[in-house]
């Protein structure tokens, strides 16, 4: 049951990438999922970015350890009623980013609910990442430590970011992509039999915001 599966480019087809990773952004409405995505893909910021209805997706190719990786980024609607639709797209996701707003405690406490939804619908070996967005705001109600503690409890890495100031936005996607790549490499080493599931992976991306131990789920 290996859900970790990169879609390899067939040789001679003139494709400009080595593999594709499907990554999903989830979290309450208004936490800044689309803003993070637009900042990462187009390097733009608009405080009143349009509402996402249903599902949107964007593509960005990045370079990780010399490999060209095409990131397939799926942005989801935050309103609860859309979960029936958005969960249909969890299948095959290799990375899932759970986003909350550091100025809104409700969005933080809802992360547990989102985590539960992920466990119900996503592949067992999908790599998760917790992100506290809007770290530039003075009106913060959720501290860095609280975010870190929750991440530890859920056994996933944690990053605080600001789409507005472009703080740690690239780190989110690069950290996740590296973790996924490491998992794939580990799987290959173990003969692709799904072994190495219990192994801890160290993130050495140099970002202070990363937790030291990332547990795979």
């Amino acid at each position, binding site marked *: 049951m290996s859900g970790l599966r990169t879609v390899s480019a067939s040789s001679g*087809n003139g494709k400009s990438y080595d593999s594709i990773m499907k990554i999903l952004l989830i979290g309450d409405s208004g936490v800044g999922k689309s803003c993070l995505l637009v900042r990462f893909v187009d390097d733009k910021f*608009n405080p009143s970015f349009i509402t996402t209805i249903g599902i949107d997706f964007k593509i960005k190719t990045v370079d990780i350890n010399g490999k060209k990786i095409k990131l397939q980024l799926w942005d989801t609607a935050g*309103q609860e*009623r859309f979960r*029936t639709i958005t969960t249909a*797209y969890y299948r095959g996701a290799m990375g899932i980013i759970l986003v909350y707003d550091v100025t809104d405690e409700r969005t933080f406490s809802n992360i547990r609910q989102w985590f539960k939804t992920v466990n*119900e619908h996503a592949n067992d070996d999908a790599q998760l990442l917790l992100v506290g967005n809007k770290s530039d705001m003075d009106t913060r109600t959720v501290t860095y430590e609280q975010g870190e503690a929750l991440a530890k409890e859920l056994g996933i890495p944690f990053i605080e970011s600001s789409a507005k100031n472009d703080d740690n936005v690239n780190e989110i996607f690069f950290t996740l992509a590296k973790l996924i790549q490491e998992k794939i490499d580990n799987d290959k080493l173990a003969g692709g039999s799904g072994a190495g599931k219990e192994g801890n992976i160290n993130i050495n991306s140099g970002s202070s915001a990363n937790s030291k131990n990332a547990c795979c789920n």
Partner: protein
Amino acid sequence: MQSPTTTKQSSITTDQSLHHCELLAESIFDEKSVVTFFTHREQKDFKRKLICSSLEKRDIATLLKLGVSNFGFISADLRRESWYLLLCEQLLLPQGSRTDVSDDKFRHRDENQVHLDVQRSFTGVKDLQRKETLRTLLKNIIIRILRTHHQLNYYQGYHDVVSVFIVIFAQCKRYYPSDRMQEDVLLFSDMTNRGDEDVSFSTEDMNNNTNSTLTQAFEDKDGNFAVDEQKLFRCVEAFTLLYLRDFMMDSLDFPIDQLRIIPRLIKTIDKNLYKKLRLDQVEPFFAVSSILTIFSHEMKPMEDGESSIIFCIFDYIISSQSMSAPLLMYANLVVENKNRLLEEYETNLENFGNYIDLVHGIMQKVLLGVSYDEKLWDRILQKMRTDVKNVNFSYKKLVNKFSVLVTTATGKPIFTPQGNSQTRYDLNYVKNLLNKEIQLNTKRKLLSNQKNDKKKTNFTLLHRLSSLTCSASFVYKISIFIGLMALMIKFYRGSSIKHLIPQTKMYIGKLRSSSLAGLYQESKYIWLDPLYGILQNMVTSVSSRNTSFVVNK
């Protein structure tokens, strides 16, 4: 202008023709009619006159046809009056004043979400003050709708639909010929630019969520350029209750029912495309934003531009009183882009992990790219006008029995012979429908939750079973091992599977005889421990086994 050659054309140019507009309205603005002889501008001017005269006479039947035909209701001023007249005809309100819901005790549970979405609306408007004005109006209208009809649930995308009405009603107020209208637009924007003096609008008012500040905000000294909020509210209310009811339940179950009609429509139009895109296997979730917002999420309504497509789409829907129209439009949109979709399908086959992602990916890529293609949309609307009667499709079995598709927005009045009275609904009747639909939705939600729970328990049961086999106690493993070994030895000794057949026959014979003799216990014994027989037989020689088999026979 060239002199018209046919008698039909000459009759158009005379003023007398206005009296016969009922007869002409239906066909005259279709692409293929004689009117294509004239320029678009001439056609529009003529149509404007027809609409004006129909509005004056309150000639609903003609107005309906004008709304559906080419250019729709032409411009914001005519649109506003036409929509108002038609929607008031469609939803009748009881007499008497309505309760004021501005007090916070009427607060609706979804107001927080409304606030979040309104902050992200009208992103295309460059003038900041104008943008804030429109947002305030949008927020007030939505909140008033929700507070007046507390059972309705707000969904993300409803704000897009309402913003179409906002733009039409905020553009200018009075009913003027086109040249005057231009002036009005200028005056109105001029007024908002002058700032705090004329428009008592500030960011503080924004945070103050009361309706009283709103009335101040949109009225100047003459009252000339004020948005008629009452009329606007009346239109949005009727449109919401008659057309959008299915979308405003507690879940997306009913909208998903509507979405699932789209692949079926595509199948009736182009079966080949339906098969190639595997639409029988893929949920049509890619269409959710287009349908929930009636295309207004993809095509943001803007205050400039008379011929904007999004307004023509709304003209069509309101005039035909049809919520199946957006579904058919979407199906046509897909079919119109067939070649590009198939092309993208082929090139992206390897780029996606499964068909859900692939179909969503190519639909988004191709359809978003063409959402502002006016010519394409003209073709689609033209198809709607001519081919819609040919698509014989019953929605009855696909949606709930109180759905807008089979009750209040069926799209039927337009197809009945001339002179029919429009399908009218009483507010209480519609409220009753709404309550029944909510009840059904709750039932359905409960059912689907139960199903999910069942699935989960099934899953855990399976999981447990499989884990049992993996981590079962040593005794189990040993016994299974012995059994398998016994079978293997048997095969080895018998060296042919043929020997197994008489063996089975023997068991069946044993069972039969024992059951005939009423010896159920023995039969149980046989079936509970078939290994016993095999092992016993193994001990005896091959020849004796054969004789026992003969004896049994």
